[in-house]
């Protein structure tokens, strides 16, 4: 037993934040692969939806803007189901199980716990999207002219879905309730994605929405739009939609059930 006057330099060095995040992430992955319901929701369903999107839209959505819309719709469906819904459900479930409280009673910081819970969900969907991307390429879907912009849009949107899921989990008491509490964000994202296509005088406003910003980036990525300040603006908007939900969720996050 050590003395009470132990200074930080005397203390044993604990694991780094990165190794703690990795430990929690691997645990979460293990749980996902052990639970058939979660596995279906997080892995099979998004891929199945991507295949469906291709068969429904590939013929009609041709040319740079058509492909950008097809990819955008696919990305939204896969990320909303695979990241946003899964993140909300996972955090609500772990809270209900009091496992979040358990993790918080240890040495890990709040940020480490959140990152540990969300990283595998994002990584899993990123891997699925890579697979979908390969599938689209094999099927002859036109490749982006600015792949880095597309890559930024994809990872930005995945992060956005993760922090939005974190925020939605604050208002989600259980996994079952997530089916309801996630609906508004689904509609907002998909609705605003299409909103930007209409010339209704609210173009500026529509560009500030998550769906609108995503579409702007993808259009630029496929060369359907110019690489100008509006693209940088769209990137900032996506970043804001990542950071703001995170800040609100971090402040309001509930670690245990009521």
């Amino acid at each position: 037993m050590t003395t009470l006057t132990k200074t930080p330099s005397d203390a044993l060095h604990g694991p780094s934040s990165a190794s703690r995040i990795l430990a929690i992430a691997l645990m979460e992955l293990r749980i996902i692969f052990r639970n058939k319901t979660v596995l279906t929701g997080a892995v099979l369903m998004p891929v199945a939806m991507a295949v469906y999107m291709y068969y429904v839209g590939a013929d009609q959505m041709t040319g740079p803007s058509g492909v950008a819309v097809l990819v955008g719709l696919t990305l939204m469906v896969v990320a909303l189901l695979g990241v946003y819904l899964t993140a909300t459900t996972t955090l609500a479930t772990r809270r209900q199980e009091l496992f979040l409280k358990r993790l918080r009673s240890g040495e890990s910081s709040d940020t480490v716990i959140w990152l540990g819970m969300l990283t595998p969900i994002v990584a899993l969907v990123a891997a699925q999207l890579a697979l979908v991307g390969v599938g689209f390429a094999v099927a002859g879907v036109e490749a982006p002219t600015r792949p880095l912009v597309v890559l930024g849009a994809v990872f930005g949107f995945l992060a956005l879905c993760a922090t939005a899921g974190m925020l939605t989990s604050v208002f989600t008491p259980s996994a079952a309730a997530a089916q309801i509490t996630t609906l508004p964000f689904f509609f907002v994202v998909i609705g605003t994605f299409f909103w930007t296509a209409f010339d209704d005088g609210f173009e500026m406003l529509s560009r500030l929405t998550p769906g609108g910003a995503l579409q702007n980036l993808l259009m630029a990525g496929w060369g359907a739009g110019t690489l100008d300040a509006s693209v940088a603006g769209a990137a900032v908007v996506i970043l804001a939609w990542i950071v703001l939900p995170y800040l609100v969720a971090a402040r309001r996050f509930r670690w245990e059930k009521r």
Partner: protein
Amino acid sequence: MTSSPSTPTTLHPAGRSDEPADTIAVAARDLRCSYGSYEAVRGIDLTIRNGEFFALLGTNGAGKTTTMETLEGHRAATSGTVSVLGGNPYRDKSSIRPRLGIMLQEAGFADDLTVAETCRLWLRLSSPDPRSRSREDVIGTGLETLDLAGKASTRVKMLSGGQRRRLDLLLATANEPDLLFLDEPTTGLDPESRERTWDLVRGLNDAGTTVVLTTHYLEEAEAYADRLAIMHDGVIAVEGTLPDVLGREPSAISFEVDAAVDVLQLTRLGLSPDFTPTPASTRVAVPSLDLQQDLWKVLSWADEHRIRLDRLSASEASLAAVFRRVSLAA
């Protein structure tokens, strides 16, 4: 130790506040914790010395768990000061937590992990073992000690309530913490498991770990705690060593007499000033701070007046009696 002015009994161990800081594991001054407009902890002072085994008792809703969770750093105090191992448990979590073991009253596991995987995850998140044992050594010893070795490959969801509680204890004690918080650790355990639990906790305490315990089993506090406090309605009503606390609590003599006996005669025997017999009552309960002397007086009075004392009983003060009195106090 202080509480609100309305508290019935408060003992102040002399000189506590003058002690050097390095002998104090936990100190709270005028600690208050609120949930919205509801004040769960209403200004408590608490000092727990290094190496001490301290029991925090109280009725349901007395504020014990809120106090514990504040000391553990799970929540910030609404007002007042808290120091745990020399730091603020909420603000200085990163430096204090590696030295704490926390067994919450209610905390879950990832049900789809096995017992061994749960232990491994926990140790991967924790600072290294102070004795430089490998993770597998720590897990193996812990599972053996708490009779969970046979369950290492079992998924947590298949464990009984008692087994989950023991796993909980294993995680809290795995790295031999300097300060161990135990919130009702034996609830739901069978007698053998309780014994194993206390063997482990006593062993840690003997080796220098400070233990802060909450329990509803008063006999556990009586058996193991160096010092205890009883909380009621958000304040500490009683605090001290067991002999201190019991020394302030009256013993009891009780008996029944025939309706014809004038029980008011008992007031002339010089019994406790708190004793006021009800006229014409047949049932008499005498509080006593000197049980032997007062019992002798009562028996002499009965003998002298040839009065038969039915259902006579004399009982020493007990923690249960103190607890009852505190919980009944308005």
